């Protein structure tokens, strides 16, 4: 399965994704410079974390217009697998590939910490290795992860099981205290209706090896590889 990780000016988790997929999962992966306009030949595109364009104005706002983005959007609309992590998630929101928007964390500070995530939907290409309701331990590191969607959008997200991860307690309760940033509905990650574009604030690439304190993130990437190897077809 061939991955491409997109490098925007200011991306800083691209190498981490590269390592997790390339060295830990041993899958082929290329770095794709934001100035490229062709993404053909890839099975999955990853938009990594970082501070694209310094996150100035709004996180992801300027990156959304990078030269590579039309190709990414076409790829995504054609059903290609797209994973946006942290800043990558913010870019997907700005690009309109996922609904909603990010605000500053309600504590108004950057937060780097381990969080617990409840798997709300394990039928996506990204979560096949998890069981429904499983609690994962994955770190976050962001200042603008306070997810917002209006009531209507939210209801639709819920109805269509597009909320994939929610912040929860270690035992899986979705409580305000377990919410590190003020996101509506404790939302940590969502998927599009077609099920091929996932955005999440937590960093799976930071917990893909035992030495880093956990391997739940590896399972997310491994789920993708499983899915691809099974040749499952989206939207079928």
């Amino acid at each position, binding site marked *: 399965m061939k991955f491409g990780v997109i490098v925007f*000016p200011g991306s800083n988790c691209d190498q981490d994704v590269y390592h997790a997929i390339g060295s830990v999962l041993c899958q082929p992966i290329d770095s794709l410079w934001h100035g490229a306009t062709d993404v053909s030949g890839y099975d999955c595109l990853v938009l990594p974390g970082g501070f694209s364009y310094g996150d100035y104005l709004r996180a992801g706002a300027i990156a959304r217009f990078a030269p590579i983005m039309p190709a990414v959007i076409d790829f995504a609309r054609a059903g290609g697998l797209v994973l946006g992590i942290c800043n990558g998630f913010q870019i997907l929101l700005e690009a309109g590939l996922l609904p909603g928007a990010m605000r500053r964390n309600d504590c108004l*500070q950057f*937060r780097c910490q381990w969080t617990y995530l409840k798997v709300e939907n394990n039928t996506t290409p990204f979560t096949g290795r998890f069981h429904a309701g499983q609690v994962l331990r994955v770190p976050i590191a962001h200042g603008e992860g306070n997810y917002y969607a209006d009531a209507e959008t939210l209801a639709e997200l819920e109805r269509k099981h597009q909320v994939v991860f929610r912040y929860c307690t270690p035992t899986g309760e979705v409580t305000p205290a377990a919410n590190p940033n003020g996101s509506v509905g404790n939302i940590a990650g969502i998927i599009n209706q077609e099920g091929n574009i996932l955005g999440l604030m937590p960093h799976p690439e930071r917990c893909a090896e035992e030495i880093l304190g956990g391997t739940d993130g590896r399972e997310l990437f491994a789920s993708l590889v499983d899915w691809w190897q099974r040749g499952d077809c989206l939207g079928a």
Partner: protein
Amino acid sequence: MEPEVYRQMGLTDTEFEKIKEILGRAPNYVEVGLFAVMWSEHCGYKHSRPVLQLLPTEAPWVLQGPGENAGIIDIGDGQAVVFKIESHNHPSAIEPFQGAATGVGGIVRDIFAMGARPIAILDSLRFGPLDDPRNRYLMQGVVAGIAFYGNCLGLPTVAGEVYFDPSYSGNPLVNAMAVGIIDQKDIRRGHAAGVGNAAMLVGARTGRDGIHGATFASEELGEASEERRPSVQVGDPFREKLLIEACLDIIKEDLIIGMQDMGAAGLTSSSCEMAARAGTGMEIDVALVPRREEGMTAYEVLLSESQERMLLVPKQGAEARIKAICQHWGLEAVIIGRVTGDGFLRIKEGGQVVAAVPARALTDQCPVYQVERRLPFYLDDLQNRDLSRLPEPADYGQVLRRLLASPNLASKEWVYRQYDYMVRTDTVAGPGGDAAVLRVKGTGKGLALTVDGNGRYSYLDPEAGGAIAVAEAARNLSCVGARPLGITDCLNFGNPEKPEVAWQFYQAVTGMSRACRVLQTPVTGGNVSFYNETEGEAIYPTPVVGMVGLIPDIEKRCGMGWGQEGDVLILVGVTLPEIGGSEYLAVVHGLVAGRPPSLNLEREAAVQETVRQAIASGLVTAAHDCAEGGLAVALAESALAGTVGAVVELAGDLRPDYLLFSESQSRVVLAVPPAARERVLALAREKGVPAAVIGRCGGEQLIVKINGCPMFNLGRGEMEQIWRQSIPALMAR
């Protein structure tokens, strides 16, 4: 020239005479400006240079000692670690967010100027007490500024320290350390070699930022500095991130002879230092420097401290390729001059020469001052205070609670949760332990990093304080299983023209030097920050030590949390009746007095050797040194960092408060599986180090008895609550 002109720039009459002598003529205005910044304390080290000579700087593994942008240490396999610490105290006092942010930006540039990939940041902070809103404002801004810059760069801030004391009110300390890694073949130095080579400026445009910042950093803060403050530099971490990648690409393609960042004194210092190191000269045309503002004079361009700029000396013919790389990263790269053979820094504006001075006159001929050293009058009284008659506390549980709540000892999570300490996925042990541990991908090695210093000890005895800073840093590294390799130091002091400060400085450096020799941790570089005073009151003399160590096999590392029921607790080292300068004395008795704990460096080395060997042999499940708060606090910290409590039985005829809270040096608490107990004790005996079994891990309580008599019994939950909530609660006020 009117004396007012050069005096305003910070030069004395004799200094001005010396400039005339060097030049053989009167300097013009621009030239006076060049001398004034380069001969400022900040750049010229005129009150510290002779004293710094005392520090040992050599060891077989030191590849680069002081004098370059950063020090370099060999870590085997053709790799090296590059590191340096720097202060940004004055800018942070004026504008905490940008001051701290640009402090991080500056120190990171020193690392990649050597050709290294920056991999981590550490920060050492001092503020006044948090009940003052001004101090809360400063801490909030400083921490947010470090987070803003470091996080955006994608560099993990993996360790640091924060202390609070009234002596830092009004003059906070913000010391930032950066660490990088490099293949030895890629090492570049800040040399402008090769007559005829170009000088290229890469990065941000030049504005009127921080003109005379270096001079500003060389003055006391006061009413006047509010007025005279230079326009504050604003950091742009996004541009710096691009600058890092561009410079490393340039190194990878072997396109340059040398480079240097533009820190204090901007273009002036980078150009004359690069020339002076190589024994060459440099000619620069300021008209070629891209500007952000209109109407800037040559003087302003030369002295601007605009951030995120580098000066490169390309190999011949490499200029076009360098421009292309910079363009790829969206950066400007412009040839602004060339290397010359006459040793002069010659500044032109268009065709016209506006300044011409020998480069070495600026860097090496800065006058050096030997100020009379005098024992501060406060010391005798403070050191000889009779502490033996202080009342014994009635409730030791309550004392421990108060210590855990003391901001100096309480959890610093409020700070480091704002730092992305995980990015780069090498952080194996982040903030919260004795030292941070980073893996080196592609090898089995680990790097251990720490930064330490105790201003209170140094206040009470700067020699001891300096030595203890080194010893504690090394001990922290040993506790994670690393061998200490070298240090970078930041010496924060008051006005060095005062004999008492001169004495403190000399004493502290002497102490550090003594410890560095015995512990074999040479100094590879550092920074001196003088004039940390407000309204004539100096801060505590505060030497801060950043240290790097190596774990040959990262699988053999150690943490400080207890995790295993039944593990045996062994105290390596001995507790002496030493509560002078302790946190206990300050918190419970409201006193900063006495003598700091004694330090026997041979004992220290043996204790650390014992700990490292025990860890390397796989005998230890947790190790933690006794530092501020003494044994009792060390035990509590290990209980909180792990998952179990312990029952501890101490014996001896010391007063219980001494036994529990004395900050005697050279002590480490090890948790070892019962089967390893005898081997660890035997190892200690072999090294000639006292070691005693003091308890056993287990349960949810930390129970401590002395001679069979219960002293306290506190639950992990309660302790954790107190310890974790203290700083957040203060900051929320």
